[in-house]
């Protein structure tokens, strides 16, 4: 039985191409709407900030980009992102200048808004997506959801030193394949909208594996939160996120040095990628400690040193123009990390903002204390996930050591959530960070990947509606929900059937399995209740004006509702990292999965 129009697509290049084409279309359509600060002098919004950076970078020498001056005023959208953003602004600025010089003229272009420059600006974001984010999505999906023949190729290509690329996960994927053929006799039918693999079932993925791959691809390409922020509100998050995704894919394929460089690039485009730093650090450290190729302490140290040197070198390249003096470097750093901003901005669905209803953090405590508290809680929240990776969680299959690639993805989710929830100076858009690895994991956490991006949009609604992105908000969320929900539920049921066939050992695992099993069974009900509650809040906001003495009532309600969802997802995700990718019992876990597959086959 088909549950989603997504299942009309196959795993061939034609279907993927179609999906990419539609992803570009929805980006263009989203861009038809308003943007942050449209027609709102004197400071406008993020759109003007990006345009202003283009103006600065094309008109000033590189060394003056971060230096205060009459034309580069610290009070008017100073360049406060790391150098790669500056370089990208310069590239976009050059393109904009070629088409419409007035749009980037020094000073005189402040607040420049024209229909043609808006279209051009929109296209720079789309081109950036086409060059970085979308290819990264395709590569990451190919690495994490390999078709049987490519995973075999990876196994032969991957040497002993790269256990993650060796077929550690093959047993589980055969498990899904076996399960799917049992669950639906039609699973063996050829994928409907692709005829190349029609008659060669050896190259065609099983229905469940294909669905998992499509869920991840669709989730990454159509994530409504990212669409609305980058192509509605106006930012270039896709670049940093795409580079992060590419880094994850590279590391999963055993190319750790390349992964390190790509992550440094992501970090140097937008320092919000720091949210992922604990995960990358812990994963690579875990690899250095546990990989069987690293026998003895010197080998482990050498591995760490090689990574460290590569990362430092990559940093040096990015920062080259400012390395000539300590003062220049500090000037850039002070621009990038303005501690003068508060604990959080506006209304964010994180711990500090949500709990500020009960305790006014900002007024009760001095900023430096809050900064420390934020750092400590963030680290504490990320610690379990880091420990899991450093201990080599999920690894051990196929004779290899080190943490598994899925462990890395789950650690990225947790580390992203830890920063979103507890770190200093978080804004609404930071929720994009945990969403990235989460949508990549859509084949394994289908229901989570279906509702969290929608909840993320909901949590950003006050911002979006201020930007005039209300209509795209409805449209992008509707498309995502409509296409994703059915297929995600189908996938979740399949995974649940597998789990029930082979219960995991341990009381905690049994409790979690029982709860998640119940949630999957009740999913239509829960989803309906969630949508109804969100719709009710929207309706109330639209129809009933907030009481005069509680003007923030609706914003508060929106973020409290979102916070509950995020907190639940974070807690589950913490547990799931340990349960899904067990530490130290790699071979045991693999054996259990094989047993499950066999049992399903026998049934």
């Amino acid at each position, binding site marked *: *039985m088909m549950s989603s129009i997504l299942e009309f697509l196959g795993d061939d290049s034609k279907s993927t191409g179609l999906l990419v*084409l539609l992803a570009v279309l929805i980006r263009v359509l989203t861009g038809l*709407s308003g943007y942050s600060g449209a027609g709102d002098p004197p400071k406008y919004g993020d759109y003007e900030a990006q345009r202003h950076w283009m103006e600065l970078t094309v008109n000033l020498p590189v060394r003056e980009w971060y230096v205060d001056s009459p034309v580069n005023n610290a009070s008017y959208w100073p360049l406060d992102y790391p150098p790669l953003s500056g370089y990208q602004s310069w590239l976009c600025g050059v393109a904009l200048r070629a088409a419409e010089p007035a749009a980037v003229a020094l000073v005189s272009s402040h607040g420049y808004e024209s229909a043609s420059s808006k279209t051009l600006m929109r296209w720079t974001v789309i081109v950036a997506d086409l060059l970085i984010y979308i290819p990264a999505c395709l590569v990451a999906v190919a690495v994490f959801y390999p078709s049987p023949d490519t995973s075999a190729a990876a196994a032969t290509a991957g040497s002993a030193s790269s256990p993650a690329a060796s077929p550690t996960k093959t047993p589980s994927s055969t498990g899904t394949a076996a399960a799917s053929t049992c669950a639906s006799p039609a699973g063996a039918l*050829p994928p*409907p909208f692709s005829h190349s693999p029609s008659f060669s079932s050896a190259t065609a993925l099983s229905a469940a594996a294909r669905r998992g791959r499509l869920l991840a691809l669709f989730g990454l390409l159509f994530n409504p939160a990212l669409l609305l922020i980058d192509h509605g509100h106006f930012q270039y998050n896709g670049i940093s996120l795409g580079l992060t995704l590419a880094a994850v894919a590279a590391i999963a394929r055993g190319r750790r040095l390349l992964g390190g460089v790509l992550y440094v690039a992501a970090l140097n485009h937008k320092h919000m990628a720091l949210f992922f730093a604990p995960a990358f650090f812990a994963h690579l450290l875990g690899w250095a400690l546990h990989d069987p190729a690293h026998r003895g302490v010197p080998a482990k140290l050498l591995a760490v040193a090689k990574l460290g040197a590569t990362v430092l070198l990559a940093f040096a390249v990015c920062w080259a123009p400012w390395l000539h003096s300590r003062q220049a470097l500090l000037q850039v750093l002070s621009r990038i990390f303005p501690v003068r901003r508060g604990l959080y901005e506006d209304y964010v669905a994180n711990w500090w903002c949500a709990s500020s209803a009960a305790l006014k953090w900002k007024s009760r405590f001095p900023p430096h204390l809050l900064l420390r508290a934020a750092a400590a809680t963030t680290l504490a929240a990320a610690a379990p996930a880091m420990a899991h990776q450093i201990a080599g969680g999920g690894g051990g299959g196929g004779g290899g050591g080190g943490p598994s690639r899925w462990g890395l993805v789950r650690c990225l989710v947790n580390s992203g959530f830890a920063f979103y929830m507890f770190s200093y100076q978080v804004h609404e858009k930071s929720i994009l960070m945990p969403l990235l690895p989460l949508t990549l994991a859509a084949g394994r956490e289908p229901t989570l990947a279906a509702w969290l991006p929608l909840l993320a949009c909901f949590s950003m609604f006050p911002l979006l509606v201020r930007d005039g992105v209300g209509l795209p908000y409805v*449209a992008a969320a509707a498309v995502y929900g*409509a296409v994703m929900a059915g297929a995600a539920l189908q996938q979740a049921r399949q995974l649940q059937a597998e789990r029930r066939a082979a219960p995991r050992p341990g009381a905690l695992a049994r409790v979690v399995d029982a709860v998640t099993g119940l949630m999957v069974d009740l999913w239509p009900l829960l989803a309906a209740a969630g949508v109804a509650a969100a719709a009710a809040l929207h309706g109330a906001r639209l129809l009933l004006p907030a009481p005069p003495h509680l003007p923030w009532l609706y914003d508060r309600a929106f973020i409290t509702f979102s916070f509950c969802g995020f907190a639940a997802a974070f807690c589950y995700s913490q547990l799931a990292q340990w349960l899904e990718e067990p530490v130290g019992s790699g071979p045991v876990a693999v054996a259990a999965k094989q047993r499950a597959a066999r049992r399903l086959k026998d049934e």
Partner: protein
Amino acid sequence: MVIKHGSFGVLCLQLAVVATAVKLLLLPTYRSTDFEVHRNWLAITHSLPLSKWYVDATSVWTLDYPPLFAWFEWALSQAAAAVDPAMLRVVNLDHDSAATVAFQRGSVIVTDLVLLLAAFWLARDVAATGVASGGGGGSGIFSGPASSGSRAAPPRSTSFSGLPVDSRSSAAALAGRRGVALFALLALNAGLLLVDHIHFQYNGAMMGVLLLSLAAARTGRHLLSGVLFAVLLNMKHLFLFAAPVYFVYLLRHYCFETTGGSSSSGSSGAQGNWAARGLTRLAVLGAAVIAVFAASFGPFVALGQIPQVFGRLFPFGRGLLHAYWAANAWAPYAAADKLLVLAAPALNRQLGWAALRVDAEAVGSANLAGGLVKVQRFAVLPQITPSITAAAVLMALVPCLVGLWRLGRAAGHVAVGPGAAPASSRQHVRRVFARALAYSCLCGFVFGWHVHEKAIIVALLPLAVDAVCSRLAARRFLVLSTAGHYGLLPLLFRPEEYGTKVLLVASYFAVAATALGALHGDAASPHARAARTGGKRNAGLALGWLQRAYLVGFVAVELYCSVVHERVPALRERLPFAPLMLTSVYCSLGVLGVWGDIAFEWSGEALGYPSRSSFGADT
């Protein structure tokens, strides 16, 4: 991957949500003067008495749609009053407050529900038909002897032995996918998105009524079908082109139906019953249709305004060609005229006598300098009058009408297709109706007087019904939709919408090509079976080289129009009309090709010679 009954609805619902989301996203785009046209009609119908509806000329955009559409506007205006009463004042010309824009855009999206509903009904019927006729292939539009199949006809003896074991379930699955694909092709039609949701019109709702009428005919509810068509005709008289086909179909295959019933031929008693039943049905149908017309035009008859109303509805003073030429038969004609004007001096000099007489006055009136080639009179070629276009349309329709009439007679010995379970001949005729309807609308587009480029959509949507069932029709649909949609692009001329319009058309092409290719390349489709038994590779749509070249040619045309022409000053200055002329003429080639293809097929049908396609295995 069998699509169960429940999940079919879910899949269509998902597509409907996606379609509506796209429409919402298009809300802030460019609006043509049609936005003001419809605002004015809202105002006229809301604030003026009936007697002034077709008289008022406060705005230049006078009411020129038939009365039922005016009533449609009146119904909308009741809701509009609650949103922004200012839009309902006739004197508030060009009123476009944010609320008005949201309301008018929203009204198009909401009334599009008629289209979605009709698409669902048709799609469900297509999905169910395949299951009902079992062993696959029976859902072909024209099923008949396989001998004349051009490329994929299997030897007759293997037609059943070649079936896969699970042919019944996979044929059912294929039928379900056909239904979903049809819903997607209808609900997400790029032409309607461009014309209704950017340019601004209400074609979706009216196409919905046409498709409802078609679905009613397919499911045997002929009286309903006839009434719905009468309603439609009274909303937009463009659909007049389809009236002859409706007339023949309802007369021959409803009133005086001979197919399907076993007792229809035989004793004279049965003959008498048949005649009596026919006359009763004709009377009832006629009365119903007349009632619709009476409700529509009656009040104006009473007011004595019929000449005034008809003067508004049929403004023949407008000229053969719209400002921008629609991609029909007159586009190459007009282009030839233009080229002959340019060539005439040299040619006459060469020949030594005035072989070509150039009408200097006509050259003066044809504005060659502007981007638009406005033609009032042809300078060299013979003039085309409204009666010539009417005659051309009728002549083009004759084979279809005759063929449709004869279908009933031929119906006794159809349905022995390759591997096809015999669909009842009654079912067969009802399915052919979609093709006849598409053809008649296409004839109107190709030869009609003052045709708008948008009218191609009217022919496209019925053809989609055919396209999901027949590979030949799928190829035609792909060519016609691409040519038709590309021909719409000049309507949206602002640079801001460039990416949107091109991507919408390209995406629709990609979705249609992938979906139709997969349907006709499916393991359960007749072609795939034929290819397997014949040891050939399964080729999906199997587009011919000419079709491929033509489709690729659009990339070249687009490159010329939007890149080369702009960059080369000599071209821009000397041939300012080239992009629009090239677009019209190139699109018309595809439209004429498809028209000729279907016309040839109907001619064979009319003459009693089943052509390669109509009775071939190429279903």
